């Protein structure tokens, strides 16, 4: 196998420039001494400082809040670290914020753990930290605690990020997929599969034009608008990340023991995503999203939900895609070209491109 000990040869598969005199993460940055403090002070705090983080205590001391809490955690291992429409930093913040938002919580605080690979350029780390800070500002979440580890070269893929997010649950809280009922209406907040295709096209250097853009972004505003507009009509929300929309529909079908039925022609898919999927034999319904959610609302509330979502640019192409039915032979069905209703399969592992 090839090995490469030259830090300057870092391949990030992204349009990033590394200065000629670049500094790099070393194992000493993770060993708790002077270099560790330098890394925290000059890089992390320089980007992410706030009143909680500056204390540098072993645990963040946080104020009391009124309502019950929501807690979520996630790890981010995307390759490449930069992709059209985002990077691992913004992904980590938006991913955690979206998990809180679709759970009915107002995001408050976040912990951030960085696992860095020896040799990782500090200039690139700074860019990612800036992206984290920007996404945190945009979503009004504060990074209140963190951790940094450095692993030897070859042990990680540049940078891994782990987050934990805390939010305050706000009424009305979506009751969840177990409460789905027959005739409930299913909605998608925007074009599907954009993140999965953007990452794939960048990682594999497919050379596509126009370049597919990830939907990496916040769902916070959309969820707030839905809550204030038709909050009592919403049964459940879910950001359709790994496994795509198909995986969400299967999870909900399992939780509710009902059949979820969608219309292929109503599912929004951008021309770029559709083109790549046709070319490689992939199904957009199986591709990952990072700023697109599936919503189930009570019967008759679908039109209002779509109108609300269409009022902001992030979800301007929201569509009603199907309804909930009593349990048939299969958990999720899709109506395609000839109007025949067919099963929609649960994705099996990562989608693999076909031969011809």
């Amino acid at each position: 196998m090839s090995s490469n000990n030259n830090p300057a040869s870092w391949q990030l598969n992204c349009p990033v420039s590394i200065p000629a005199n670049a500094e790099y993460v070393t194992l000493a940055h993770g060993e708790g001494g002077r270099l560790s403090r330098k890394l925290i002070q000059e890089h992390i705090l320089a980007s992410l400082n706030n009143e909680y983080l500056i204390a540098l205590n072993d645990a963040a001391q946080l104020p009391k809040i009124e309502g019950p809490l929501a807690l979520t955690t996630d790890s981010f291992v995307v390759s490449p670290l930069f992709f059209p429409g985002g990077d691992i930093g913004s992904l980590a913040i938006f991913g955690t914020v979206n998990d809180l938002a679709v759970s009915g919580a107002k995001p408050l605080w976040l912990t951030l753990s960085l696992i860095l690979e020896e040799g990782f350029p500090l200039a690139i780390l700074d860019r990612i930290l800036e992206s984290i800070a920007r996404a945190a500002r945009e979503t009004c979440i504060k990074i209140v605690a963190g951790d940094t580890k450095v692993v030897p070269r070859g042990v990680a893929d540049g940078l891994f990020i782990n987050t934990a997010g805390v939010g305050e649950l706000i009424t009305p809280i979506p009751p969840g997929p177990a409460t789905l009922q027959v005739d409930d209406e299913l909605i998608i907040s925007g074009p599907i599969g954009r993140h999965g295709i953007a990452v794939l096209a960048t990682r594999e250097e497919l050379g596509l034009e126009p370049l597919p853009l990830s939907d990496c972004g916040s769902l916070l505003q959309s969820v707030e608008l839905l809550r204030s507009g038709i909050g009592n009509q919403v049964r459940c929300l879910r950001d359709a990340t790994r496994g795509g929309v198909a995986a969400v529909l299967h999870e909900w079908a399992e939780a509710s023991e009902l059949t979820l039925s969608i219309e292929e022609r109503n599912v929004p898919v951008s021309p770029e995503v559709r083109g790549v999927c046709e070319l490689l034999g992939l199904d957009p319904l199986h591709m990952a999203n990072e700023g697109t959610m599936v919503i189930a609302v009570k019967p008759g509330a679908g039109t209002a939900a779509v109108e609300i979502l269409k009022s902001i640019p992030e979800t301007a192409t929201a569509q009603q895609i199907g309804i909930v039915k009593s349990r048939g032979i299969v958990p999720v069905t899709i109506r395609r070209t000839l109007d025949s209703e067919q099963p929609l399969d649960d994705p099996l592992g990562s989608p693999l491109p076909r031969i011809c």
Partner: protein
Amino acid sequence: MKYLDEYRDPKTAQLLLDEIRRITTRHWTLMEVCGGQTHSLLRHGIAVELEGTVELIHGPGCPVCVTDQAAIDFACQLAQREEIVLASFGDMLRVPGSHGSLLDAQATGAHIQIVYSPSDAVELARKQPETQFVFFAVGFETTAPATALAIKQAARYRLENFSMIVSHVRVQPAMESLVQAPENRVQAFLAAGHVCTVMGYESYESFVNRYQLPVVVTGFEPLDLLDGILACVKQLEANEAMLENRYARTVQAAGNRSAQDLVQEIYQVCDRAWRGFGTIPKGGLELRPEWQQFDALLRFNKPAIPVFKRDECQSFEVMTGQIKPPECPHFGTRCTPESPLGAPMVSSEGACAAYYRYGVTTTP
């Protein structure tokens, strides 16, 4: 989408379906040769719609499904070696060999790299001269020109760290072997449009004359397929056997001459073991002697691998149209995409995968 939605229009599809039903006076059995056509027929519900009118049986046209198990075993073995990276198309990775798939091998330390074109594997070899890259060259005449080009690129760069496991297969010998079998039920063929794009369709003239079976070159979209089926049924009802090209927007009679020349320059026809079928005379392509420095079999001294025969998998019966996937006793029970007994359940073009994916549990 331009040039796609036009071939998926539900109203036109319904008109074609009605026309097929209107002119059909008896039960006809058609074989779609290509696995991509199988998936499209099931995905768009055409096979179900034609139930009782035209029976569609699924041919051997999935190159991943018919790749010899020994080739997969060899690929797994090479990928386990420290100095070798095996480059492969994605859909080869889940296909079971005698002792697991390439994905299984990867989980236990094998070096496997998914590539999107054979040239990508050449580029990898250029960038990492200390590593041996072996490309798993699988596919029909459709992919053979691209792998031939990769060989020429590797030769131009004088790469000594690039080779291929050549497992290319040829469609027409397989069709011949099918129609000559005593159990043959095929009354007409939907020929694989992609293969004909490269190879043309002139060579089917003698096939049609010899066996007196209609052959209709057909595309992959719902309207392409319905149009091809209608053309077959018209011939059968008129007791005719002709060669027709119903995929004229892509396929020319002579095909793509420069692609054919490239294949001719690099490969020669050989007998090839097809998974489930046994050896098909002239059923494959191998490197010509002057290019054999790129043959991984020779470079790495392929060892004799005892092949574990999976008797349970009825892929031969499926790929020759003797049974439909749901008729296999293991379909959906012991054999699923998560735990396949054979290749047709995991390949993205496999007939069993299509039935499983699109939930056809009865026999259309």
